[in-house]
């Protein structure tokens, strides 16, 4: 079975907590959850990294260039995080 696995990296110091990526994520795995950065913005976090499909919607809508997205197609057998 082929599974598409995505990984996102969030630059938490750049994040301003606007929440546009939370709304745009098709799997709803991004949240703003009470953790703040040095500018006291509530930054975005990923709750279930294994479920990310690497669609990059969050990256497109982010106004502050916080999100980098990688995607890999791999066999389920030799893929784990």
């Amino acid at each position, binding site marked *: 079975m082929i599974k598409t696995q995505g990984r996102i990296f969030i630059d938490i110091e750049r994040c301003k907590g606007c929440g546009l990526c939370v709304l745009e994520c098709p799997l709803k795995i991004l949240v703003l959850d009470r953790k703040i950065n040095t500018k006291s913005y509530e930054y975005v976090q990923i709750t279930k990294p294994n479920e990310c499909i690497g669609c990059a919607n969050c*990256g497109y809508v982010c106004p502050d*260039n916080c999100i980098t997205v990688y995607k890999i197609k791999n066999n389920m057998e030799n893929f784990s995080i």
Partner: protein
Amino acid sequence: MKSINNTINLENLVYTKPSLMNSNITHYCPGCSHGVVHKLVAEVIANMNLEEQTIGIASVGCSVFIYNYIDIDWIGAAHGRAPAVATAVKRLNPNKMVFTYQGDGDLAAIGTAETIHACNRGENIVIIFINNAIYGMTGGQMAPTTILKMQTATCPYGRDISLNGYPLQISNILAQIEGTCLVSREAVFSTKTIKKSKKILCKAFKNAMSGKGTSIIEFISTCTSGWKMSPIQANKWMIKNMLPIYPLGVLKDK
């Protein structure tokens, strides 16, 4: 852990910061549409290999500091005079790619004459017009593009036709002028609209380089501070109230 390291390499990269944008953190409010439009401009310039040839004209407004974020050549113009400055730059450097980046207070209020005459002369420039229906930087006053019944600092009971007139459809006016070759109205609230706007922006830059005339790309944007809403609320409000008055789509393409 091995598989994570395999994932993080260049061939698996789907999306990252555009190469022309530097690491400065923008001064815009959270959720401002300026950030996304900046990314689109940087991506289009990099995709077309115009890094060394592009000259941007920054206007007055929140976007006045755009030269801090995109690493190309910039000129800061006087309020509303960006198309006039762009005309001079393009005529003196016909091989360069010249574009202006203006807000609605700049393009549709103080700079209406410059904009209309630059379009009428058919200057080979691109005008990027950010329409958020309010004067964002100065504190949320009414703009010519403010929609009816919208509350701002200078019309606290909502815009009234008898007192303030109608919202100015500047893109529709510019589409009537012979000198323009591409007039389009876009938005950046979702991935779908962002991808569509990028294609149109690419086309506008090609038109300017091939000498077809003036291209105007209007972006319907949000102003979270001026509208006094959260970014998500502002996007919803924009889709509900602004898009019926400023419908998206290509107004002119020749």
